[in-house]
């Protein structure tokens, strides 16, 4: 009997090891492919020209492969959407886990999570047809498809991610902390601000970074509502062209293994490095604020 159990244990061990190896292997292959297809562009332009160049005219003769406007656009869109979505997401999470009655939370949480399930093309269409013209009229601007519109739509997409992960983090803060704080005479608000949120900070920051990763890599929305102009924006109402939008709109017609094709993969590499940096930062923060027991506050 013991032998059999031992065998089963071993089999399960190897099965999981195998599955994990396969998924890591696939990731490595994707990375290899990305670099293999992207790096040849640097035979044509230097890394500096590519990353700091101001003009993106990939199909002209002679062509220009400067992606600075695309990088700046991606960063600004992500930052602005983070500025909108972080307060909304975190505060909703606090409300749901600490303030709302059980009944309200039971209704609101699934609704927020349902928002995450909205296909991005629907959100893009919404931004294009309703929000764009609305912004034009409200602010008296000539173009409704711009940085601000894209940030709004991306914020709309990252709020559910941020909210539901942050809510889980807050929910798992041990009740003893709440009780101790209240027993010491702290008000509800003081308990939330000074005890619960700091205790859940590791989870909350992971939530924020994941929300931002989603925003920087999101393609459909920025393709539809950012305006697609490859220039450095002068205001938040200028049209911009984030990196994923360029890849998505141009890849279909870039001749296979031509300069343009390699350049688009090189943009993919830059995007990959950005997302990796985000994840490393998230990991660092999660490590630093890790809550080990109740004594470490």
């Amino acid at each position: 009997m013991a032998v059999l159990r031992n065998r089963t244990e071993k089999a399960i061990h190897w099965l999981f090891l195998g599955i994990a190896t396969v998924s890591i292997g696939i990731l490595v292959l994707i990375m290899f492919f990305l670099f293999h297809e992207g790096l040849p562009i640097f035979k044509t332009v230097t890394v500096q020209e590519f990353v700091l160049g101001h003009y993106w005219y990939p199909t002209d003769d002679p062509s220009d492969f400067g992606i600075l406007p695309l990088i700046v656009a991606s960063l600004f869109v992500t930052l602005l959407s983070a500025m909108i979505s972080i307060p909304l997401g975190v505060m909703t999470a606090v409300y749901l886990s600490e303030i709302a009655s059980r009944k309200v939370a039971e209704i609101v949480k699934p609704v927020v999570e349902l928002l995450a399930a909205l296909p991005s093309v629907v959100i893009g269409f919404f931004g294009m047809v309703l929000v764009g013209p609305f912004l034009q009229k409200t602010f008296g601007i000539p173009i409704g498809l711009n940085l601000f519109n894209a940030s709004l739509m991306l914020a709309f997409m990252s709020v559910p991610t941020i909210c539901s992960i942050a809510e889980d983090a807050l929910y798992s803060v041990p009740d003893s902390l709440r009780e101790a704080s209240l027993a010491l005479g702290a008000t509800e608000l003081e308990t939330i601000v000074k005890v619960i949120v700091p205790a859940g900070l590791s989870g909350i920051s992971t939530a924020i970074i994941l929300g931002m990763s989603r925003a920087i890599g999101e393609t459909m929305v920025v393709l539809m509502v950012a305006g697609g102009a490859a220039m450095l924006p002068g205001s938040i109402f200028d049209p911009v062209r984030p990196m994923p939008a360029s890849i998505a709109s141009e890849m279909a017609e870039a001749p296979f293994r031509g300069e343009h094709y390699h350049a688009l993969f090189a943009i993919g590499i830059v995007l990959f490095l950005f997302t990796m940096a985000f994840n490393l930062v998230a990991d660092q923060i999660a490590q630093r604020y890790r809550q080990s027991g109740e004594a470490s506050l």
Partner: protein
Amino acid sequence: MLRKAGLFFTALAFLCLGSGAAFAERLSINGSTTVLPAAQKLAEAFMKVRPDVTVSVAGGGSGNGIKAIVDGTTHVGNSSRFIRNSEVRMAVEKDTYPVPFRIGLDCIVPVVHPDNPVKDLSLDQLRDMYTGKIRNWKEVGGRDMRVVVISRDSSSGTFESWGDLVMNKQRVVPSALTVPSNGGLVQAVTTTPGAIGYIALGYVNKDVKMVSVDGVMGSEENTISGRYPISRPLFMFTRGWPEGVTLDFINFVFSKKGQEEVKASGSIPVY
């Protein structure tokens, strides 16, 4: 005896079926997304006439269509532009000779918001708008309103034709909005009062206003007669002079029925 004959015929029938499947011919078409709708309609109609042929159609851009012909990976390569010198050189190096067939025409028309009073623009004015020299509709006889330049993505065939026919090889201003499809462009122009954009004639609808160019309105007649300046031929390329099924298909394209299909797809037939 009868049984034997029956068996014989059954065997024969199976043989026919088997050989029918084995000899079912394949024809692959690849290339320009502008030619794609016409190619799809033509392929469907051709398969009705010739059920023994399976036609597969894919769109990957004009450059890919011609490259596929040179590499021999497709039978028919679609292109919304003529073959380039560099591509001819590539073909010669590989010992092939791509043969062009002009299967239809396409005309590109400038469109503005329906409320815009401007009716006509010259080619020079269009170019100046797209290079950013003209920034206000006032300068071309319109209202005091900023010109919002909307363009197609740099890799679209329509963008390339616009570059050849209007821009005179000058660059479109970086602040131009770019949209990945004809439909998206219509949408953007509809919602932007100061917008100017350009689309294939087949995509014009009541939400946008067509502007005439140098006094000539974009239309089928004006394109066939050559009076309308922003038009271009659509091509199908074959690897050498077509033979067999490929030749049958090309012949079908130029038949009355084939040209009707070209027209139904929104392009302009050659006759």
